[in-house]
């Protein structure tokens, strides 16, 4: 996430200096190691909630959130560990949530598919496909009505564009010229279904144009490209120039749900995966960093640090308590009178 508080509409530098690239690499590494560690814990059934891993897509959450501030809102879906971490969510609370512990970010009520970190602007991720798209539009409307410079970002998949409310949302955002940046992570699959089994054309970004808003398709495995496109979109949004739809093309390495690599929910796709592994967003960034002179020892050191952090988080999760049964009926309603 970008440092500093919200900016005042001055166009942002889109060139990426080494410090930023290093930070983005660290974020991607945190996501990667977290996801791959979770994969093992899923295999051993130590984590049992339905879990959709983000491995392979790290550059998108990372590049987009690097263009945001802590005050900006983001929303996600069923595959949102990456969004949570990139926006600055606490990794220990994430792990504890996966274990169903009371120290989890949702106090053990949500599991992998329901993450929240209001302190850093993540107002929620929920697994009903496309559900948070209109919700994010509404958060953007709130920003606009209050005259804030905040932006609102829903992350969603290619599958979500098949839901009607995605299209309704584009129209509302365009019509009210809202500061919302729609991030479509097109990983070619919706569960077991390849995109060619669900759409005639491979042109999701074009839904922007027909609604009169900015749209672009980009390489979602290139963190710099994602960051630069996001910065431009954020600038437009903060300057009252309205919404943007970014279609980030990518591929998830693991199955739709759970830890499987080659086969899940009934599809084999080894060959495709073979093509995508070399496009590893982390490897690409590592290469750029090395080329820019970052010593290998530092790169290795960062990986070790992150590994330690993730292991710590897992330990924290293991050692935490389950929510007491008596809490079952809590939180159906909030007692909000107080803050009126």
């Amino acid at each position, binding site marked *: 996430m970008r440092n500093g508080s919200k900016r005042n509409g001055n166009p942002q530098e889109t060139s990426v200096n080494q410090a930023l690239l290093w930070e983005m690499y660290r974020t991607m590494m945190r996501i990667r190691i977290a996801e791959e560690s979770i994969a093992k814990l899923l295999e051993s059934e130590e984590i049992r909630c339905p879990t959709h891993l983000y491995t392979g897509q790290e550059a998108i959450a990372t590049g987009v959130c690097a263009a945001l501030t802590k005050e900006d*809102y983001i*929303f996600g879906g069923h595959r949102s560990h990456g969004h949570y971490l990139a926006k600055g969510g606490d990794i220990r609370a994430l792990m504890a949530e996966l274990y169903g512990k009371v120290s989890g970010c*949702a*106090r053990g*009520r*949500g599991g992998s598919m*329901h993450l*929240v970190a*209001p302190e850093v602007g993540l*107002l*929620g991720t*929920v697994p*009903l496909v496309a*559900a*948070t*798209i*209109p*919700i*994010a*539009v*509404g*958060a*953007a*409307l*709130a*920003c606009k*009505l*209050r005259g804030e410079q905040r932006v*609102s970002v829903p992350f969603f998949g290619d599958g979500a564009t098949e839901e*009607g*409310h995605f299209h*309704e*949302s584009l*129209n*509302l955002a365009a*019509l*009210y010229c809202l500061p919302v940046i729609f991030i479509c992570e097109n990983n070619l699959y919706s569960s077991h279904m390849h995109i060619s089994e669900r759409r005639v054309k491979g042109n999701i970004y074009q839904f922007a144009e027909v609604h009169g808003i900015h749209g672009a398709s980009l390489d979602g495995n290139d963190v710099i490209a994602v960051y630069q496109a996001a910065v431009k979109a954020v600038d437009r949004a903060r300057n009252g120039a309205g919404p943007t739809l970014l279609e980030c093309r990518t591929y998830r390495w693991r199955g739709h749900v759970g830890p499987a690599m080659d086969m899940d929910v009934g599809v084999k796709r080894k060959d495709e995966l073979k093509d995508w592994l070399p496009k590893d967003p982390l490897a690409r960034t590592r290469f750029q960093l090395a080329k820019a002179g970052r010593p290998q020892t530092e790169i290795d050191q960062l990986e070790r640090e992150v590994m330690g952090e993730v292991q710590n988080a897992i330990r924290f999760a293991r050692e935490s308590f389950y929510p007491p049964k008596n809490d079952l009926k*809590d*939180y*159906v*309603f*909030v*007692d*909000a*009178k107080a*803050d*009126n």
Partner: protein
Amino acid sequence: MRALTYAQAMREAFAQLLAFDPRVFVIGQGVWSPWYAGASLKELEKEFGRDRIIDSPVSENATTGAAIGAALAGMRPIVFHPRMDFMLLAVDPIVNQAANWSYIFAGQVQVPVVIRASINRGGEQGAQHSQALQALFMHVPGLKVVMPATAYDAKGLLIAAVNDGNPVMYIDDRWLYDEPGEVPEEMYEVPIGSAAVRRMGTDVSIVATSYMAAQAVNASKVLERRGIDAEVIDLRSVSPWDRETVLNSVRKTGCLVVADAAWKTCGVTAELAASVAEEAFDDLKAPIARVCLPDVPAPTSAPLEKAYYPGAEEIVLAAERVLDQKEKRWAIASRSLIRKHITAH
């Protein structure tokens, strides 16, 4: 005190909320048009601007979702659906999202959204423009559901709903819009979950929602002329509903009629009848009567419509039926007691 109509009272609540709380805004279909909302939103957009009074495209799902999102981000939106029927396109944001968000996230993010939906029926509109679907939302935990029957409650419940901080379904009825009633000028809340006793009585309890509550008051007058002293309770909120007031009344009268101008099966009357039969089992002196729509879609043709909608007359008949049943049982019980007495000798 001034008299306002039900619709004017709603409008006053809207205007005061908008003036008082900068977080409040209105979004929905027809909010710039008297056609959809009657006097209830009249010229609000002129007073508060089209930024805060947003007449939307025909996109029920996304507008409702957007209101929920704005609520998550700290606003106090009121969504308007000019008919409950149209709101069926927004069941996902309401039931899957708004109702669950607080629970899922352990209260860390609240959803202070009010979803106003109008029951708009009769006038030969037919099956898709007539539904009263409160039961669908009453079934769902995480939603509160209020149904004002008077001008006073129309204002007070709207203010309470906006201040509640949770998702509240506010369901009004076009058939009540012109009903006048005394309405204080200041802002006030009618507590969600509290019923109002409209008439005290000892013979039979009539518990009713919304339009049927108004009809129940009329029915009680007819019953009075026939020597029957009915207690009339206007439920006002169906979720949560006021168990205490209803149960106390039934414990007193032993007889209950529940009236709700919606479908019977799994409706509001089912829950009330089931709960009362459980919790006041020994007090009930006769079977509970339920006055509802038949389990049939709304027709258009005027004579069929007339046969379709219940009113005061049906409540009167139901009350008399319940009291007959009570009499009958009383007679049987006395006879058997006498018989036992005789046998005993």
